[in-house]
């Protein structure tokens, strides 16, 4: 029997968090490849989107990812001073600091958004970061924003129709 749970996923298997990762081409994406070549096993919950530089990560990408159902977002860039494009990672850090506050004010827990500097040689750090992030998000449970949006929209519909009904009565 398939049951819909509150995230809209089927309950036949245990809920697994889904994390979107934006990795820069030169350091962190390469580190993730190195983890592969070195067969460093880690949690299968991240889905990597490759960008040339962490500076390309538009805060909107992150908000969109949450809004569309991601349980966490990880950004990976080169260590400070090591950016392939000189300072894109600093730009990323700046936006990240601002975005953290926005995300916090939206009621999204801070562990769901993470920025890490992972150099091309740090295959093992990919494992550490991913496993840690997955463990923390598992404790938090699903974020499930699409379903929440749907519920809120349904509530709005009900209110709108209720108000409309009353208006007819009073008319």
């Amino acid at each position: 029997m398939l049951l819909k749970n509150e995230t809209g996923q089927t309950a036949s298997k245990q809920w697994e968090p889904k994390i979107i990762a934006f990795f820069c081409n030169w350091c962190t994406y390469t580190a993730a490849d190195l983890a592969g070549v070195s067969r460093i096993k880690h949690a299968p919950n991240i889905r990597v989107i490759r960008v040339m530089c962490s500076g390309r990560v538009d805060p909107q990408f992150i908000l969109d990812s949450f809004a569309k159902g991601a349980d966490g977002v990880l950004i990976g860039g080169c260590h400070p001073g090591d950016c392939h494009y000189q300072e894109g990672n600093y730009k990323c850090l700046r936006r990240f600091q601002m975005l953290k506050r926005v995300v916090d004010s939206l009621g999204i827990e801070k562990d769901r958004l993470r920025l890490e500097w992972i150099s091309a040689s740090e295959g093992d750090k990919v494992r550490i970061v991913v496993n840690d992030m997955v463990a923390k998000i598992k404790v938090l449970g699903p974020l499930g924003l699409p379903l929440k949006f749907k519920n809120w929209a349904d509530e709005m519909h009900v209110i709108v129709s209720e108000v409309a009904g009353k208006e007819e009565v009073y008319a």
Partner: protein
Amino acid sequence: MSGTNGKIKIGFYICHCGTNIAGTVDVQKVVDYAATLPNVVVSKHYKYMCSDPGQEMIQKDIKDNDLNRVVVAACSPFLHERTFRNATSQAGLNQFYFQMVNTREQNAWVHLDPEASTDKAMDLVRSAINRVAFHKPLEKKTVPIKPDVLVVGGGIAGIHASLTLANAGKKVFLVERDPTIGGHMAMFDKTFPTLDCAACILTPKMSAVKNHPNITMWTYSEVVSVDGYVGNFQVKVKRKPRYIIDDMCVGCLDCIEACVYKEPRFYNEFDQGLSKRKPVYMPFPQATPQLVVIDPETCIWFKTGKCKQTCVESCERKAVDLNQEATFKEIEVGTIIVATGFQSFDARKVYYYGYGTYPNVYTALEVERLINASGPTSGEVVLRDGSRPKSIAIVHCVGSRDKNTNLWCSRVCCLYSLKLAHLLKEHTHADIYNFYIDIRTPGKMMDEFYTRMAEEGVKFIRGRVADIYPDSTDEEHRRLVVKAEDTLIREIIKVPVDMVVLSTGLVPRDDAQDVRRMLNISCSTEGFFIERHPKLAPVNTFTDGIFLAGCCQGPKDIPDTVAQAGAAAAEALALIDLGYIELEPNTAFIVEEECSGCKSCVPLCPYTAISYDEEKKKASINEALCKGCGTCVASCPSGSIKQNMFEDEEIYSEIDGILNYQMEEALCC
């Protein structure tokens, strides 16, 4: 699929990679799933997609099914993106109508649960299929390659690379930090396994470098900055003051004779401090160039401002110039070969071996100098007190294969220890004990060399040395006791010896991290520079146009160093002779109609590629300067900057794909 023109027809392929992918990911399931996705016309799996039949399958499908997009789920794009782009373009499609899904390095190889792995593959396949619909036909831009080459480091690697390039008619700038080229190899006496004399094979190459019309050799110089990119690097080189006018000095050494210090009394770097030199000195007799150098750290004139300046007086050619200052040279090169070498492990860090405490504990490099006929003792192997050792212990793996120091095997120590064993025996007839963990002698003629040494009567004891301490039964406390467990007989043994040789490992240079930053290349966790691919691109770096040679990439012996230097030179030649390089077209551009002229992007660009057109009140990007990071794109409040290959739609479509998010599910109120 709004935003795309015409009917999208996607061919999807997943590679088994033998069992590398198919062993974990259920490829059939992925193929069946992909076939249900919008715009997918063909969905197939194949044993090896990168093979000729795999590529031909794609090309045939493109023609037969009129495909206009291709998605391949296989290894990392770093490995085979180029292969599949070529296959795509050979079938008549624009090569950028291709998207790759990393299903091996970042999936099958790192996950254990086949179900989770297959789920992840399906998410990313959906994402790529979503994305590829938005791809645009792009053209790679080409930039010309400047034909000159910079070689950093004048050891055997830099020397060989320079000569190879110069002989091919290319102009080479060879920059060496020390006053002479030659590197570590110049310090060695003999080389394993052939036991030919290092100087005899190296010095002719050194003078060939000096005399080659195509090589500009700058010794006692350092690269201080590197800007630009492949084909067009701007390099600044600092030429440290030698206090000698290059063109005037003939290497007569009269100034050394005339120095106010009558006896040499300062640490001689070339002899590892086993001999002394004066403040004005020639590093070694065969130094190239044959120019003396004045060391301001020890010269009394520079230290106190008071000296009779007898060196200046003694020079008939007026070559001594104590007022010389550093000069800076600016050059433009198309490619760079990094051959900065290694340094020996500091044996003091393994304190229980007593290096620096007991005078009769030596490092291997010191012993190389002791054995060398042109060394501090003219090849006479004597201890610091002048006596001849009757028994010698050689301790392997000092600073190698040790979790307290360095994990890596330095590769050359076993063999140079065997060489030293042979040479020490030849010079002293002493009893030689090799304390080893494993004897590692791979390579041509290397194991035969080991067998020969064993037959010569060199003793081998399998066991890591635990302690070295003075022999209390020796009244003069000169003799040392080497304590180790002989793991073959399972007994603790204590061997009294007159001399201990520590076979120190090879470690990265102290300033390797600074060099890495300057060149924008990467280091491994150990600190050696990383090659682009360990097997397929062993001398390339992740930065196009910069190549590696020698021990700066990892410990290796002279034959391998020379082979790698040749390979690096060949890679540079390939670029130079092609004359141009193709760059990824991932540059940013401004959609003028949407630009509000807010200027927020202008200061963000590290390459000053963005300017503001006062007349139009719009920003504009100089494509030639843009390196394609996308930082400005992310910052534009009106979304009027776009980055080729990484347009917003492309990335949002990836997000949608991963999360299986569909517009109709969403509620817009």
